[in-house]
């Protein structure tokens, strides 16, 4: 999140879109209730179903699954056409005034931008983004039109682009009545006023689409237009789904980044350390510090065991291809993956086209599962339809301590890193993940050190035992040492030394080592680390700077320069974040302004992470569109109303062209989601009798008309299939939940029924059920490859 949970209390209007807040983040509702009680705040719930959040909202806006992009486009249209945007903010803090290359254009029949090229290797297209760049003068400075009237300026390009996203068109696309759309737009866009704060909460219902990144861009652009970034009660607020998924992404569990959100080195772009720095370091903005962070990271990895250039050469390099979940499993199906370590993950239930993925795992020589229970991924070989005698995979299960059975930090959605003390010892042989990874790597390293290999150095030379071993027992990891290194330490010929206070202290010359520059400061005093602080503020805006450590630099609201006008006075004096007192920046939060920047520079560049320092309304930072655009999902029952010839996102890689079905065979839209009572793949919760009592079985929610048409009564067994299953003569079963909380949608005169399945069930545990994800498609967003779990097609029938 750009803001944080407690900050919601300052919002005037909160829009939960593609995020069922009350269902999945129930505790956060107390902050929303506080805003309602104290400020008369309103909650808008945008969701295809009347879900638990809708039940407590002030306005429910039902939209067809896969049309968030159209709905957000309508809000942009509304704000632009009715002058609801925050003009001063837009002029001074965004790139609205910037001129775009005159070659930029948009084809509104095909729904594609200038620069589109075929990309046959990915079965898709990609963009040459040169026509999306800013116009620059001879000195290299960006050309602007401060009055925002030049047809090539971002503002005018946007106005033109969103003309199509009017009430009539968007009502057609979303199936939501025009008056409801307008009510929502009027309410949310009222926060464009300088002193008002609009908050957008979102989760997987926004991201899990082939145009997921466009959805998030829609939210970001709307918030920039309304001046809701950097202020208390505003922000683009992703509600993260696991207690430490924020920590996981910070520490770069995803293949395309290394700790602190730097890009993973690529063979073609950065074969050497110097080339990495040259390519990855921009001219301006805070990422100019990149060389210090990469060098400090290399020092944390290899210490004094290698020179900096050698250390860089040891890092694995990407080959430019997609290596995310879908791609990796595809390689597995081709026999190219010998083994897999599946760590606290259950893709056999939570991955797309899960049944196929369980099949692909048969090709593995070995599989290691680190988890608290034996989950479906580890037990794939004894799942439904499997014949163990034909499977040669050797499966190892390493019992892991549960989250409350070990000490360590967690980063919440608001970037607050909080130390958590363990509540009890782990049972039996279960060990903490840290101990398991430490031992595993140590044994691996010992083998490479003694037996050698083709290229042993990257593993053999890693400063592992030197940095992290317990002083009395080399086979035990010392958590404190790991924390110190993640924080960052000064480094000499004698090894790691004192803590670095914060990331401003990191250096490029090998004198500092740091496991994650963003975390620098969270453990700067090992005897009293910031992440263990538990001091509530006595007055302020609910930022509680004495509680835990928020990256970066304990800043609670990022981009907070934008919380004050160009003169340095807060837009909202009732909840001021920072302000200029004549000599310096003071206030309730750490100013998001690099030290040494004078007033003018700070005011010119409030979005410090970008080279131009302005919020990007028009952006070349995503690979599929410069402006948030509506594309239909890969499997959709209708044509794109806005762009008649457009297909789904042209840049999404089509891994399995034969696996996409059409509405002739699969007439209903299926969406998948969660319930409060179960968690993710159900590996833990379906082993809890009290939770199974509440939600014992997989159920499919459907509207009353569809149920009547199919002769289905509440509680009946229903069989469901999709292209992925039908081609293999398979289907899954669920109990019918006939409800008035879903209504059929009308698009282009056609009635379209939407059905939904929670994805928590699998074949292991006390309460079992079919795997909903056996139905979902293996296609995703072109920036992240997050699969399109939220809208695809299915067919269903009553089972006698």
């Amino acid at each position, binding site marked *: 999140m750009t803001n944080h949970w407690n900050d919601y209390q300052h919002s005037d209007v909160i829009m939960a879109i593609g995020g069922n807040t009350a269902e999945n983040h129930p505790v956060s509702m107390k902050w929303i*209730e506080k805003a309602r009680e104290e400020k008369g705040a309103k909650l808008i719930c945008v969701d295809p179903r*009347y879900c638990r959040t809708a039940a407590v909202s002030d306005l*429910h806006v039902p939209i067809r699954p896969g049309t968030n992009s159209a709905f957000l486009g309508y809000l942009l249209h509304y704000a632009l056409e009715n002058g609801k945007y925050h003009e001063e903010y837009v002029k001074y803090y965004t790139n609205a005034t910037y001129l775009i290359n005159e070659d930029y254009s948009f084809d509104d029949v095909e729904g594609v931008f200038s620069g589109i090229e075929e990309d046959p290797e990915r079965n898709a297209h990609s963009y040459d983004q040169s026509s999306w760049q800013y116009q620059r003068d001879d000195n290299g400075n960006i050309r602007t039109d401060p009055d925002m009237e030049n047809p090539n300026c971002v503002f005018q390009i946007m106005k033109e682009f969103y003309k199509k996203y009017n009430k009539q068109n968007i009502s057609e696309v979303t199936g939501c009545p025009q008056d409801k759309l307008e009510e929502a737009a009027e309410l949310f866009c009222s926060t464009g006023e300088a002193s008002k704060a609009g908050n957008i909460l979102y989760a997987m219902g926004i991201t899990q689409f082939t145009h997921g990144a466009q959805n998030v861009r829609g939210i970001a652009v709307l918030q920039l237009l309304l001046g809701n970034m950097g202020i208390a009660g505003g922000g683009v607020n992703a509600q993260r789904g696991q207690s430490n998924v924020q920590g996981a992404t910070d520490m770069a569990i995803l293949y395309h980044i290394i700790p602190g959100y730097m890009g993973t080195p690529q063979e073609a772009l950065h074969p050497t350390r110097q080339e990495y720095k040259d390519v990855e370091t921009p001219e301006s903005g805070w990422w100019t510090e990149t060389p210090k962070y990469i060098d400090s990271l290399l020092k944390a990895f290899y210490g004094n065991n290698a020179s900096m250039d050698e250390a860089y050469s040891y890092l694995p390099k990407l080959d430019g291809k997609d290596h995310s979940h879908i791609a990796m499993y595809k390689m597995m199906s081709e026999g190219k993956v010998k083994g897999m370590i599946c760590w606290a993950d259950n893709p056999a239930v939570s991955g797309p086209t899960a049944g196929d993925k369980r099949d692909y795992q048969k090709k593995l020589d070995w599989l290691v599962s680190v988890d608290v229970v034996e989950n479906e991924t580890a037990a794939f070989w004894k799942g439904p339809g499997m014949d163990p005698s034909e499977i040669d995979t050797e499966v190892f299960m390493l019992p892991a301590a549960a989250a409350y059975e070990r000490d360590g930090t967690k980063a919440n959605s608001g970037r607050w890193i909080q130390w958590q003390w363990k509540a009890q010892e782990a049972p039996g042989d279960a060990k903490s993940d840290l101990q398991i990874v430490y031992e595993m790597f140590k044994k691996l390293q010992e083998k490479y050190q003694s037996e050698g290999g083709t290229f042993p150095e990257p593993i053999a030379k890693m400063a592992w035992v030197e940095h992290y071993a317990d002083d009395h027992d080399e086979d035990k990891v010392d958590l404190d040492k790991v924390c110190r290194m993640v924080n960052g330490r000064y480094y000499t010929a004698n090894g790691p030394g004192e803590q670095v206070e914060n990331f401003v202290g990191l250096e490029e010359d090998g004198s500092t080592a740091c496991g994650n520059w963003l975390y620098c400061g969270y453990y700067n005093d090992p005897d009293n680390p910031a992440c263990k602080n538990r001091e509530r503020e006595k007055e302020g805006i609910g930022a509680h700077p004495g509680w835990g450590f928020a990256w970066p630099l304990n800043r609670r609201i990022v981009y907070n320069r934008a919380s004050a006008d160009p003169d340095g006075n807060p837009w909202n004096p009732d909840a001021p974040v920072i302000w200029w007192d004549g000599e310096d920046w003071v206030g309730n939060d750490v100013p998001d302004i690099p030290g040494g920047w004078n007033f003018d520079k700070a005011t010119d560049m409030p979005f410090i992470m970008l080279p131009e320092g302005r919020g990007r309304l028009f952006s070349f930072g995503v690979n599929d569109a410069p402006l948030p655009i509506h594309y239909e999902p890969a499997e959709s029952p209708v044509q794109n109303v806005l762009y008649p010839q457009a297909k789904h996102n042209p840049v999404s890689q089509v891994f399995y062209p034969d696996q996409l079905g059409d509405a002739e065979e699969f007439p209903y839209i299926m969406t998948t989601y969660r319930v409060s009572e179960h968690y993710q793949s159900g590996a833990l919760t379906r082993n809890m009798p009290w939770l199974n009592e509440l939600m014992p079985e997989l*159920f499919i929610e459907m509207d009353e008309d569809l149920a009547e048409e199919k002769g289905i009564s509440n509680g009946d067994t229903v069989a469901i299939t999709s292209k992925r299953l039908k081609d293999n003569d398979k289907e899954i079963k669920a109990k019918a939940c006939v409800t008035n909380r879903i209504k059929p949608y009308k698009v282009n005169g056609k009635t379209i029924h939407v059905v939904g399945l929670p994805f928590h069930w699998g074949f292991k545990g006390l309460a079992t059920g079919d795997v909903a994800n056996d139905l979902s498609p293996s296609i995703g967003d072109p920036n992240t490859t997050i699969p399109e779990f939220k809208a695809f097609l299915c067919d269903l029938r009553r089972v006698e």
Partner: protein
Amino acid sequence: MTKAMLIDTSKCMGCRGCQVACKQWNKLPAEDTTFSGSYENPPQYSANTWMRVVFNEYEDENGIQWRLAKEGCMHCNDAACMQVCPSGAIERTELGAVRIDQNKCIGCNYCVRMCPFNVMGFDREQSVARKCTFCYDRLVNGYEPACVTACTTDAIKYGERSDLLNLAYERMSELQENGNSKAQVYGDEEVGGAGVIYVLEDAPEKYHLPEDPRVPWHARVWNSLFRPLRVLVIIAIAFGLWSNFSRSKKIQEQKKKAQ
């Protein structure tokens, strides 16, 4: 000065943290359930299910409605269960709880049948009635009931009844001002004043609560007529036993004399 519980259904989102907390604190086993067409589970109260979150969906002039509320024993002031209990096992405590003393319960099942809210359960193995205890064991130790502590949005509160009633009416006014003319307080005067007060956003029947809960007339009859009569019955039985005993003694003596 009596304590009570306030349930503000306008803040309830049906997360069921309360339902699980109740099971966990009281060490009640989970029931075997199936999906029967609603999120509600288990379908009924029982010896092992003392509270349930109700999910009622319907439509009215304002659109789709989904009423969510925690329900269970109302801890009535004028409690039907207390009135019909032949062994005096049920009493009202100063902490607000209407408690069943399991040691005194003879398992006659009258309370289960008389409850106007139908929230009591019967344990067939132990032959006793069971229901929400208001977490009496927590109350006497200075804690709030488990459901109150678990509630994430503070929809459930515990405190002085008069204070909670004030809060309830304040909230009702707020909801009415916000456009909901149907918002109402339930449990103020019903059943002689209930230990559990609700702020509802619609009529009680929309929450599957009885519109006009009363102690059944036959419970009152039993209480006023037959309960005192039971003393007579006991005397009668005692007299019968004594007279039987003394008569058999007489017969014994007569037999002896005859020999």
